[in-house]
């Protein structure tokens, strides 16, 4: 019974590597933002909430409308309708019931107000929303107001 040959594979390093990979991928998904990637305007007096899995609508610097990661094209009645259908579809089958009735709107820093206003107006008049959450980036103190 002394000096038995261990002939099973040592899986401990394998498991270690797998766990580290798992953690790396989880961190990556945490860091990756939702919706289309736009340059968000800086702000200081923001509120912070956990992700309620509400629909994310983005407007890029050229004024294109995005739903989550899908490009819908320039803001027109047709793309707004498409956006409404997608958003309402997401509200009907919510991943988190708290996100129903909410939209997280990401508009680019440099996009003109006239490109965003029709979207806000559409949400107000056609989708009968009372408020919309505007995405911002945390302002670093070096930048002036």
């Amino acid at each position, binding site marked *: 019974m002394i000096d038995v040959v261990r002939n099973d594979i040592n899986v401990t390093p394998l498991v270690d590597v797998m766990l580290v990979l*798992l*953690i790396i991928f989880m961190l990556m998904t945490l860091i990756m933002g939702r919706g289309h990637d736009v340059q968000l305007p800086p*702000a200081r*007096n923001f509120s912070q909430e956990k992700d309620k899995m509400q629909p994310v609508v983005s407007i890029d610097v050229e004024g294109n409308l995005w739903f989550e990661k899908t490009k819908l094209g320039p803001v027109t009645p047709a793309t707004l309708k498409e956006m409404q259908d997608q958003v309402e579809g997401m509200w009907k089958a919510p991943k988190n019931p708290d996100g129903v009735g909410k939209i997280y709107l990401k508009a680019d*820093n440099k996009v003109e107000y006239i490109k965003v206003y029709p979207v806000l107006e559409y949400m107000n008049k056609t989708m009968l929303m009372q*408020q*919309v*959450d505007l*995405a911002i980036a945390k*302002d670093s103190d070096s930048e002036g107001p």
Partner: protein
Amino acid sequence: MGMSSGSGDKKSIQSEINVTPLIDVLLVLLIIFLVVMPIMMKMETLEIPRKIQENEAPDPNSIMLTVKVKVTGDIVFSENEKDTPIVAAELVRLLRPKLEAVAARGADRVIFVDFEDSVPWANVVATMDQIRSLATDVNHDAVKVALKVKEEPKPQ
């Protein structure tokens, strides 16, 4: 045989603690916390109030405070449709007593905002941010910023 454990064994005694199960448990805990940790979304909430219907009386206590930002960066402040042009830097100082007056009357602290067409989105949010700096609560939601929804061009 005999004593199952003891200092008299022939085999070399392992005096270190076996840390493998400890590390396993810690890693699993780490993963659990990572999953539970919610993704925080940073936002500024813009109210988009519906238009008051004709058969509804507006709240007599409310004062309509509107801030209109021009492309040049100039600001026109209006209280119950009376316009006063102001310097952008004065905005917060001017709004503070107005909001206190509104709160004293028991109405909601709401500031309406309006922007010229070519104002970049960064300025829109910067103006909202200035107004929200007047709210002293943690989430800066005590002072509400509301979008002035433009009237339809057609009559009524």
